[in-house]
């Protein structure tokens, strides 16, 4: 599995995805290959996909530390930790100063699994921002 296979799959899907989404993907060059996947209508929250030796990582950036209301930061973190298990397939993390939602798949996953992961991750990210809006500026 590599990001180019995923990109080809998503671009070939066009209107025929099982998830009802239209994906657009753009490879980003760098020391590690990253695929930027956007879903039509949700361009503001792209998903970044990278493939390592044993897993496929799909990451969406949620909000920056500077957007967090500092007086309720503890409550927000607790709410996020509590939400981690009920939330299907995705988990929270923090990369540098950015809070992220991510899903990790085995490199042996099918392209169909990857597509499903991307749609669930996108749904989850919107839902999380909606639910956590009170903690954000």
């Amino acid at each position, binding site marked *: 599995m590599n990001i180019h296979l995923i990109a080809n799959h998503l671009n070939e899907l066009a209107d025929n995805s099982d998830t009802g989404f239209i994906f657009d993907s753009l490879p*980003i*060059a*760098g*020391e*590690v290959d*990253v695929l*930027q996947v956007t879903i039509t*209508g*949700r361009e*503001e*929250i792209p998903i*970044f996909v*990278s493939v*390592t*030796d*044993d*897993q496929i*990582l799909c*990451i969406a*950036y*949620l*909000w*920056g530390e500077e*957007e967090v209301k500092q007086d309720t930061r503890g409550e927000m973190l607790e709410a996020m930790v509590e939400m981690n298990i009920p939330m299907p397939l995705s988990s929270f993390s923090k*990369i*540098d100063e950015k809070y992220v939602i991510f899903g990790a798949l085995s490199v042996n996953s099918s392209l169909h699994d990857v597509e499903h992961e991307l749609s669930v991750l996108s749904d989850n990210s*919107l839902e999380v*921002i*909606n639910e*956590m*809006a009170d903690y*954000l*500026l």
Partner: protein
Amino acid sequence: MSIFSKIITAIRGGASEAGEAIVDANATRIFAQEIRDAENHLTKAKRDLTGIMAKQMQAKRELDRINRSITEHEGYATTALNQGNEALALEVAEKIAGLEAELAEQQTSFDNYEKGAIRLKDLVKGTERQLADYQRQLSMVKTTESVQKATAAITDNFSNSNSKLLNAKQSLERIKEKQQDFDDRMQAADDLAAEGSDQSLKDKLAAAGIGEQQTSANSVLDRLKSKQG
């Protein structure tokens, strides 16, 4: 220090700055080398184990053969005694004593092979466990580094394209608006389709002569004729 605590220390300490690795590249290389060494040990231990188990089976076959031979010669000795041939019986008994010495020797080898096999099996299990642990730790280091490199690529991409990241709430609002717009357009399309199908039904009814009828010249003439009559 475990890899896990190294990673935590590195992340908390801001080693995520560009160019700085979680665990220095040299350490990662040494670690990868240790894994390869462990894999080699494992392959060798497994090969040794196969060899020793084969020898153990051979020893077992030899033991069975000697035991069978002893039983056989005991039978000969008894027969010789029954025939009163003491000299022949003694000769057979000497043969049996020789076989028994051979049996003891074979038994010792068999026991040694068995002990060796058990020891090697333990070694293989231990090495496999250690290897799995090494691989898990190396995977943690590699994943952390890969995520950092991916993040760097993403950040570069954003700053290069000059596209400013919206904040989370703004993004959600924009997406919701688009969704609303999309829903409205879907609704409008549905309404249009419904109106269309309504109209086509009317047309069909009219064609079948049901419902409101257009007054035609012929029908007016018919009406006038009937009044005259």
